[in-house]
C-alpha cells in the first residue's frame, strides 16, 4: 500500500436542534491509504452512511474536515465539489438507482461519460458478467444484476475512490458474495480505493482496513493483515 490518501480529522455532524438534536458524528479521526479496501462497520445509527456522504462530498460536516490527496473538501465550492465527485469518485448505493429507460450498457455509459479516462465499457461488462444482458433494461434484471450494473456505472469512471453504501443490503447471501467479489476485483484490477459501508461483520475479513464505528466515534481502527477473498466469506 502507498502513502496516506484520505484523511478524516475531528469530523462532527449533528441533525436537528434543541432537544431533538442528535449528534451523529462526534469527532471522528482516521486515514485511508491509496488503493486500500476500507470497510466502515457499525450498527444502524452509528453514523457510517453520514460519514460516507461527507467523504463523497454530498453532505457537509459541522466541524472537522475531509482531505483527499491534501485537498480539503470544505474549501471547495459547489462546482469544485461536483468536479471532485466527477473526477475522483464512483458511487454504489444499496438501492441501485438505475435509469429505467436506458439499457445496461447505456447505464454504464452514463458513468463513462463523466470520466476523462474511462475504462472500456465492454471490458467492464465482461468483468461484471453482464455481456449477455447488456441490451436489457433494468426492469428485466434481477436485483443482483441491477447491482452489478450500478457497480459498473461506478467503476467504469476509473475512480480514485469507490464509495459503496451497503451494496449488498438488499441482496441474498449468494448474490451478495458475488457482488463483493466484483468490488474486490475492481479494487485489485483497477486499483481504486474502496470505502464500503456495511453492517455485515463478516465483510471485515475481506478488507485491508477495518474501521468500526459506534455512536459517532471510531471504536476500532484495524489493519487486517489476514484478509480473505470475498468468495470465502461466510455469514
Amino acid at each position, binding site marked *: 500500500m502507498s502513502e496516506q490518501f484520505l484523511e478524516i480529522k475531528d469530523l462532527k455532524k449533528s441533525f436537528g436542534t434543541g432537544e431533538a438534536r442528535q449528534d451523529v458524528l462526534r469527532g471522528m479521526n482516521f486515514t485511508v491509504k491509496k488503493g486500500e479496501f476500507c470497510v466502515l462497520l457499525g450498527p444502524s445509527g452509528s453514523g457510517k452512511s453520514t460519514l460516507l456522504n461527507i467523504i463523497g462530498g454530498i453532505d457537509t460536516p459541522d466541524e472537522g474536515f475531509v482531505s483527499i490527496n491534501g485537498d480539503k473538501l470544505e474549501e471547495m465550492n459547489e462546482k469544485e465539489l461536483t468536479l471532485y*465527485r466527477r473526477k475522483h*469518485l464512483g458511487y454504489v448505493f444499496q438501492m441501485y438507482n438505475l435509469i429505467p429507460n*436506458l439499457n445496461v450498457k447505456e447505464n454504464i455509459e*452514463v458513468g463513462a461519460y*463523466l470520466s476523462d479516462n474511462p475504462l472500456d465499457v465492454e471490458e467492464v461488462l465482461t468483468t461484471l458478467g453482464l455481456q449477455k444482458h447488456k441490451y436489457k433494461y433494468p426492469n428485466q434484471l434481477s436485483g443482483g444484476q*441491477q447491482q452489478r450494473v450500478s457497480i459498473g456505472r*461506478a467503476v467504469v469512471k476509473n475512480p480514485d475512490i469507490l464509495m459503496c453504501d451497503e451494496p449488498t443490503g438488499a441482496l441474498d447471501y449468494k448474490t451478495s458474495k458475488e457482488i463483493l467479489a466484483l468490488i474486490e476485483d475492481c479494487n485489485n484490477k483497477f486499483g481504486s480505493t474502496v470505502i464500503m459501508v456495511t453492517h455485515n461483520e463478516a465483510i471485515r475479513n475481506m478488507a485491508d482496513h477495518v474501521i468500526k464505528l459506534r455512536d459517532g466515534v471510531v471504536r476500532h481502527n484495524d489493519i487486517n493483515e489476514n484478509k480473505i477473498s470475498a468468495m470465502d466469506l461466510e455469514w
Partner: protein
Amino acid sequence: MKNPLIKRIPRELKSDWHKYLVIIVFMVIMIGVISGMYVGHDSMLAAVYAGRQELNLEDGSFELSGRASEDLLDDISSGKKADVRSYYIDKGNKEADKKVAEAVEDELNEQVTEKIEEAVRAQCAAFGITDEELIKGQIDAAIESSFDKAIEEAKESEEYRKAIDEAYDEAHEEVVKKVDEEWDEVADRYNLNDEFTPVPVKIYEHFYREEPEDNNGDGAEDATIRIYKSDSEIDKASFNEGRAPEADDEIAIDRMHADNVGVALGDTISIGGKEFKVVGLLSYVNYLTLHESNTDLMFDAFGFDVGMVTPEAFSQLKSRVHYCYAYKYDKAPESKVEQKDYSENFMKALITQTLVYDNEIEDYLPEYMRQASNFAVTDIEGDSVGASILCYILIGVIAFIFAIIISNTIEKEASVIGTLRASGYSRSELVVHYMSMPVIVTLIGAVIGNILGYTAFKDLAIYLYFNSYSLPKCHAVWSNTALIKTTIIPLLLMFFINLFVIVKKLQLSPLKFLRHDLVKTRRTKAMRLPRWSFLKRFRLRILFQNIPNYLVLIFGVIFIELMMCFAFGLPDSLKHYAKEAPDMMFAEYQYMLMGNKDDDGNIIETDEESAERFSMTELMYPKKSSTFREGMGSGGDESVTVYGISEESDYISLGKDTSKDALYISSAFSKKFGLKAGDVITLHEEYENKSYEFSVLGVVDYDGGIAAFLDADSFNKAFEKDSDDFSGYFSRKEITDIDDQYIATVITSEDILKVTNQLMHSMGGFMGVFKNALIVLSASLIYLLAKIIIERNEHSISMVKILGFKNGEIGSLYIIPTAIVVVLFAAIAFVAGYYLMVWIFHAFMLQMDGYFAFYMNRSSMVLAVLYLLIGYAFVSLIDFARIKRIPLDVALKNIE
C-alpha cells in the same frame, strides 16, 4: 462521447406516448387553429392591401349630372378653385344686360310710338280731320313709315345714351350686391373662403349603369346590378373564378353575390332584359362589401350586385349612364389628417369648377369614407380578438401542464437524479437534460401546428371571411403575429417555466434527492381521524396525502372552466348583445340629416309629435395600445359618439346641467375605461389636430355604445356651432314629412338587428371552431390531470394490490376522492373561471372598438359544469383501467 442521457428522450416519448400524444395534440390544435386564424387573417389583409395597389384603388370619386367636358376635367385635375364670384357676376350681368336691353327697347318703342301718334294727331287737327277711324289709319301709316327711323334717331340722342348707361350700371350694381349676398352663403356653406391648397389629381372615367338583374330566369327583378366597363383603369377587379368578359354577351359578377343567390360560372343571367353568360366571379377592389349607398348601415349582398361587361356591351345597355369619375391624388396623403385636408380642398375645387362649367355634382365620396371598401377591412382588422383571448388562455394552460409534468418527473426520478449528482453530473447538465423533453414536445407541436395553420386551418379562416365579404383571392403570407403568438411565446414560456421549475427543483442537494426528501416542510404527526370505517379513513388519508396533487387538479379544473366559459360565453355574449341591441336604442327611429337646412335655406322641421332634435359628432378617446397588432384596428383610438340632447328630452335624461366642458358618459364608456363622475377626459377629432377636455358629470345607463352626452346648448357651445344647430331627430314613429334627399341615415331596430345578425354570421363560424377546439383541449387536460394523480400513487396502488385489495376497492380508494374533489370544486372552479374570463374579456375589449360585456346564459353555465363532470366520468373509467393495469411489482422491484 455523447451524453448517454440523450438516448432517454426518444424512449421517454415512446414509453409515455399517451401523455405526450395528448400534449402534442393539444399543442397542434391550439397552435394550428390560432395560427390558422392569424395566417388567414393576415393573408386576407395582405391580399386586400396588395389589391389596393395592384387594382388601382381610387382616392375618391364624384358623379356629375352630365358628362364632363375635357376642359372641366382638366380644371378639376389641377386641383384649383374656380373664381365662382366672377362667374356669378358675369352670369348675372349677362342676364341683367339682357333684361335692361329688353326694358329699354320696350320703353323706347312706347315713347317713339307715342311721339308719332302725337305728331299725326296734331297734323290732323290742323287739317280739321276729326274722324277717329281716319286718324288711327293715319297713325298706323305713320308708324309703318317712320318708326324705324325715329327709333334710330332716338337711340343716337345723348339723352338716350345717358339713360341706358345708367340703367346698365344700376343693374350691374344690383347683380354684384346680390352675388355678394349669395356668395357669402355659399362660401360659408362650403368653407370656400378658408385657407386652401390646391390638390392636383388624376381623373379616371368610371361610368356605370344600374340595371335590374334577374338571376333565376323568372322574369322578375332579383337585384340591382351596378355595371362597369371591363376596360376601366381605376378600381379594377380581381377574379376569384373565371375571367373578365371578352364577348358582348359575357359578364363577370361579384363572387359573394353569386354565392348568395346561387349563380355559378357558366350560368346565364338577365341584365336589363339582355341575356349574359357569367364568365367570371370577381371582387372589385372598391366593393369588398356590397354597400349600394355609402349611407347604408349594412351591406346587402343579395339585393345588390356589381358586374363587369365589355365597353360594347355597356354601350348597348339602356338605363342612364352615371357619369362617375374616380380620382387619385398626384401625391398620396401621409396621414389621416392630411387625408381629410386633401379631400376637403379637392371638394372645393370640384364644387367650384363644376359650377363654373354649368355641370352639377350628384355625389362625392373620398375613399377613406367609403364603406364598401373599408367596412370589411376594419372588421377583419378587429377580428383577431377571439383568437388572441384563446391564445393567451391556452398558453397559460400549456405552461401549467408542463410545470406539473416537470415537477412530477423530477420527483419520480429523485433517486436517479441524486445518484447522477453524486456521481458528478453537474446541475446544469441535468437542467439541460430535463429541459429537452418539453422543448422538443413544444417544437413538435409548433411545427405540426404551424404546418396545419398555414394549410388546413388557414383555409378554414379564409373560408369564414369569404362567407362574409367579397374578398379577393389570397395566398398564405408569412404572419409574424402567428409565429410570435403561437410559437415563439409558447416556446419561450415553456423554456422559462421549465427553467424556473427545474432549476428550483434541482437546487436541492444530491443527498435530498437520494432520500426523496424534496419537500421543505413535512408534517410530523398524522391527523387524528374520527372512528369511521377503515375504508373511509383510508380514503381520507389518501385525500390528505394527495392535497398538493388535488391543488393542481383544482387549478386545472379552473383552467378547464375558463375554456368552457370562453367556448360557451363568447357566442352567448354575441347573441345577448344582438338581442339587447335593439332595446338599447334611444328611440325607435333615429334620423340623421345631411344638414339641418333644406335647399331654400329653411330649417328642416317635422310635424311628427314625438320627434326631438339631437346633435351628434364623432370624437376619439385615446387608448393605450398594448398589442402586437398595433396599427391594425385594435391599436387605434376609441371612437366616441358625442350627443347634444334637448333639455327636457323624452329620450335621454341628463341629471345635472351640462356645460361646454362637462358631460355625461354612457355606461358602456364608463365600464370599458373605468371612468366615473369627476374624471376628466380628453376627446380629440380623428382627422384634425383639435382636442376637447371634459369633466364627467355622471353616467347614463346606455350599454349600446361608447357615447357621451351634453345638452344641445352646451354641445353647440363646445363645438362652436350655431345656437340652433342640430344633426337629426329622435322619434318614436316614422317621420314622413322630411324629404328623403335630406336624410343621411335612418337607424331603426331592424338596422341594428341586421348589423348584429351580420356580426353573428361573421363570427359564428369562428365560434364553432373555437368551441370544438376548446372541448377537445379541455378533455385532454382533464385526462392529463387524472393520469398524473394515478401515476403519483402508482407505488401505493401497487402496494395495496399486494396486500390483497381488489381492483374495485382500490378504484373506490383512489378514484372516489378525486371524484369528490372534482365535483366539489367544479362549481367553484366555474365561478373562478367565469370571473377570470370576464376580466380577460374586458382587457381584450379595451383593444377593440366598441363595447359589449361578457355574458353567459344560465343553461350555458350549467353546461360548462356538466361537460366537465361528464368528461371526468369518462376519464374515471380510463383511470379505473389504468389502476387495473398497474403491476404488483411496482412496489417491490427497485428499478429506479
